[in-house]
């Protein structure tokens, strides 16, 4: 015990000091924290845009901002939230921090590349910020041609270049994870003993590797057309705008799974830890991650049902899109079956996990509705679509991200956060989220189109509900920000395993030493082995 106390005093946070030791670090745990700082900045920037959008929509008349300004607001909200927050969020912060710990390795396979990825991310973010400060971009986050290449007078190139650069960060992170998971596992840690978090990140990495380069070439072509009038997408120059949509969605639909697959990985960890039970259907959950990654590449055409795509292609893409619901449902059913007869505790991470399961189910089922050709034509480009993808991205990915942050925060910082405030904020996030986005389903079904700054008066009640919900949601996001920072100095010290969870990351001190483990671990049992290792390790 005294040996453990002695080791706690020297960990990855205090092993070296000074700004330089952070900016030149090769430690995956420190790089995870660098990412955390970056993505938190973009989250609040994107959130500020959302605040202005919801303020404008509180009244039917367009009275707060000009129509052009509104176009820039929703564009920058989407760009910041999708590319600079959601895509890196769970993989680059939690994945970076946890994957080597979970597989018993000293670091990722390529630590310098990992640091380079962070710098690439920050440089890409710099371009996007520069564009935003100079007036932003008004094309929508989808950059549809020929508007983006020929007609828009805003900072398309700077923003697109930022996304192009950021893409390499995403690619290199995925590459690093795949090599690490293949080559760096501890002795005895076979593929089917891996935590499901690792499986989910493996599937995510495959999408990052295969999808992101296609976005990169698409952005290059947009830049070539905008700068040099080399006609690729503009019909006036002999190009085909639908080709842009094919290339863009070939990446950007799978990108949704870059956001939600790691979230599902987090939920698998939380549900088992707080049910104190072996996960139900381990292999099915593992393979369903891979199935989602593969199927995700075959469904991009469902964004183009109304873009002159042939009816036959539409039918095929419709059926394939519905198929994604199968592996997604497998996960939801298996988490629910894991809860069954578990000894459930209601700690904050579990509240987020249960919230995720409910909200993701609503987001997923409305996705099946949208995959149906007839319904999609009716609600195309309405708030129904907006509500659907916010249920997946905010109700799904951000809930899981926050759940994961609350679960691993004691491991990351060695400190505990206040239980009351964290449970209160989890509740506020859940209530605020539903109040914000459920009315948008109704608005969309009634025919309110997205991307307009004014609307007919009969939609006001639902819009006011949505804006009120956004306020609650915003406060729910600010509270954790405050107590997380507070806990770093004043929080109670965490033991190595405060939740009594299994998994290699809990068998090393909190915070872990620089090379993660005092003695390199070996593994001789399956993941989530709660029967052999009961919760008596809670006092480590």
């Amino acid at each position: 015990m005294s040996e453990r106390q002695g080791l706690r005093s020297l960990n990855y946070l205090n092993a070296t000091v000074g700004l330089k030791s952070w900016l030149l670090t090769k430690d995956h745990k420190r790089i995870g924290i660098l990412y955390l700082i970056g993505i938190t900045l973009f989250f609040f920037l994107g959130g500020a845009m959302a605040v202005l959008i919801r303020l404008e929509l509180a009244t039917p008349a367009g009275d707060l901002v000009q129509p052009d300004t509104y176009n820039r607001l929703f564009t920058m909200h989407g760009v910041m939230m999708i590319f600079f927050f959601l895509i890196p969020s769970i993989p680059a912060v939690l994945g970076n921090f946890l994957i080597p710990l979970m597989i018993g390795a000293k670091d990722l396979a390529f630590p310098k590349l990992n640091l380079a990825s962070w710098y690439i991310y920050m440089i890409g973010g710099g371009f996007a910020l520069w564009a935003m400060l100079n007036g932003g971009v008004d094309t929508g986050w989808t950059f549809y041609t020929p508007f983006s290449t020929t007609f828009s007078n805003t900072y398309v190139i700077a923003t697109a270049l930022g996304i192009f650069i950021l893409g390499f960060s995403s690619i290199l992170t995925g590459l690093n994870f795949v090599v690490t998971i293949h080559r760096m596992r501890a002795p005895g840690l076979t593929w089917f003993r891996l935590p499901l978090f690792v499986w989910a990140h493996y599937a995510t990495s495959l999408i990052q590797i295969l999808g992101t380069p296609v976005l990169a070439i698409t952005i290059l072509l947009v830049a070539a057309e905008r700068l040099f009038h080399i006609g690729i997408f503009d019909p006036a120059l002999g190009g085909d705008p639908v080709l842009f949509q094919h290339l863009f969605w070939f990446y950007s639909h799978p990108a949704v799974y870059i956001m939600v697959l790691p979230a599902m990985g987090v939920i698998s960890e939380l549900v088992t830890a707080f049910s104190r039970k072996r996960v139900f259907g381990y292999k099915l959950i593992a393979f369903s991650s891979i199935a989602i990654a593969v199927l995700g590449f075959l469904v991009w055409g469902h964004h183009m049902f109304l873009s002159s795509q042939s009816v036959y292609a539409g039918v095929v893409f419709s059926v394939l899109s519905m198929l994604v619901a199968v592996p997604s449902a497998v996960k939801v059913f298996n988490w629910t079956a894991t809860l069954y007869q578990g000894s459930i505790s209601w700690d904050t991470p579990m509240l987020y996990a249960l919230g995720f399961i409910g909200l993701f189910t609503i987001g997923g089922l409305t996705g099946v509705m949208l995959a149906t050709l007839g319904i999609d034509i009716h609600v195309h480009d309405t708030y129904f679509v907006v509500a659907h993808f916010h249920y997946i991205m905010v109700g799904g990915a951000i809930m899981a991200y926050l759940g994961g942050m609350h679960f691993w925060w004691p491991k990351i910082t060695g400190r505990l956060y206040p239980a009351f405030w964290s449970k209160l904020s989890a509740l506020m996030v859940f209530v605020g989220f539903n109040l914000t986005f459920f009315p948008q389903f109704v608005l969309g079904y009634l025919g309110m189109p997205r991307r307009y700054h004014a609307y007919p008066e009969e939609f006001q009640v639902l819009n006011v509900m949505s804006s009120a919900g956004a306020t609650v949601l915003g406060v729910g996001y600010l509270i954790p920000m405050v107590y997380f920072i507070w806990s770093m100095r004043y929080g109670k010290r965490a033991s190595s395993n405060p939740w009594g969870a299994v998994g290699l990351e809990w068998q090393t001190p909190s915070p872990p030493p620089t090379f993660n483990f005092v003695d390199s671990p070996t593994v001789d049992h399956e993941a989530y082995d709660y029967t052999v290792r009961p919760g008596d390790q809670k006092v480590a």
Partner: protein
Amino acid sequence: MSSETTTRAWGLDHQFDSLEQQREASFLGMWIFLVTEIMFFGGLFAAYILYRWYNHDGFVAGSHELDVTLGAFNTAVLIGSSLTMALAVWAAQVGRRKLTALYILLTIALGLVFLGVKVIEYRAKFEHHLFPGPGFEWPGPEPAASVEMFFNLYFLMTGLHALHMIIGIGMLLVLAWLAWRGVFSPENHNLVEGMGLYWHFVDIVWIFLFPLLYLLGRNAGA
């Protein structure tokens, strides 16, 4: 713990347990990177397929404007450079440092010959007003926009390929210097093998570009 630190091989990074593990990780990483490159070029190949289908006559006419002799010469040069690159990897495997550097320099020289020929070809296109943009002129019977689309893709595809060559040559220069200094050993020369894979990949991209741009449609009777 202490025995582990004393027996660690030279050149073994801290995160790995053995040189074998480091070598496997390095190769897997390189192969995955090449997969991303295939997807990157893949977007352009998709555009080529679509626009060739839209503008068949223009593409046939455009491909007749390219110099097959120079293209074939460049193909031979590039395949030759892949041979010298493979020989450099062999020299590193058997631990002959000067020979490794020499073969890398030969590879660089052949790469520069390729780029030089490319400059001659590009200049001829400029002079014949075949560079896309406001200065483009097409006197033939085919629609000018169709032929221009061929040259859009010709310059984008060969330009992106040339950019990969330039980056590759830059990295090979560093590699030659490292090889000369004796950084590589028969046990650890992952960097040479990784660069070799990259160079062969760039070569293979050209093996696809040459027939698509220079040869396809030449016998279509147009």
